[in-house]
């Protein structure tokens, strides 16, 4: 398995775990972002960290977006006091609509398949202009355009032939 295939495999498997942990039947862009932020020692993880987005910060930003969006219709999670449900079954979640879009954009952003780098995956996730991820980043005070530039710089500096 090539390094990029190994990276994609790891990120998608870990995104599936994030999806299950959050009770989601599908892998969405935010689950991919969490998985990318968790891959220590990779270029996209370093770019995220340089913008203050380590794994915990991404998790906190997504939580904040959830509460913020609920509050827009007068709903508070704190009002629900049911016991936490058991971890969902091991059935692997399917890739969801926003997860698919992020991966399609990642592949489309590399000139050729052999030019694909881990940072392209982050590039694909960050290209979404609407939805949970850009809202979470905005609420966390992250400049998405600046972050996109940093990712592009990282790809350019990675010696793509």
């Amino acid at each position, binding site marked *: 398995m090539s390094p990029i295939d190994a990276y994609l495999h790891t990120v998608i498997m870990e995104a599936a775990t994030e999806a299950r942990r*959050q*009770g*989601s*039947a599908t892998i969405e862009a935010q689950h991919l972002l969490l998985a990318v932020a968790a891959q220590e020692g990779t270029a996209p993880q370093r770019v995220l960290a340089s913008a203050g987005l380590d794994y915990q910060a991404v998790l906190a930003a997504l939580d904040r*977006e*959830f509460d913020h*969006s*609920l509050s*827009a*219709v*007068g*709903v508070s*999670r704190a009002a*629900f006091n*049911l*016991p*936490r*449900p*058991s*971890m*969902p*079954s*091991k*059935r692997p979640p399917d890739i969801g609509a926003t997860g698919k879009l992020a991966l399609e954009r990642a592949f489309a952003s590399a000139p050729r398949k052999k030019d694909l780098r881990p940072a392209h995956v982050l590039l694909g996730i960050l290209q979404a202009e*609407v*939805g*949970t991820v850009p*809202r979470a980043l905005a609420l966390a005070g992250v400049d998405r355009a600046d972050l996109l530039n940093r990712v592009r710089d990282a790809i350019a500096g990675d010696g793509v032939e």
Partner: protein
Amino acid sequence: MSASEIPVPQDPADALAAVVALRRLADQLEDAAVEQAMRAGWSWPQVAEALGVTRQAVHRKHAKRLIAAGVKLRRRSP
């Protein structure tokens, strides 16, 4: 509360995001509520009728998870 009293966010992005967040919250609430009911001895047909879905739908969605969690499931309705 009537439908007209539900606050509708002015920004379409906020309104659409609220739909996503409410669906996610409803899914989480369903997981917790079904588990709570089954632990309390409810049957699948009772849970399904209370949720307004078919017995097959509720079973397909929750049975594996509850069995994995060690919840003792009633096989038949009373």
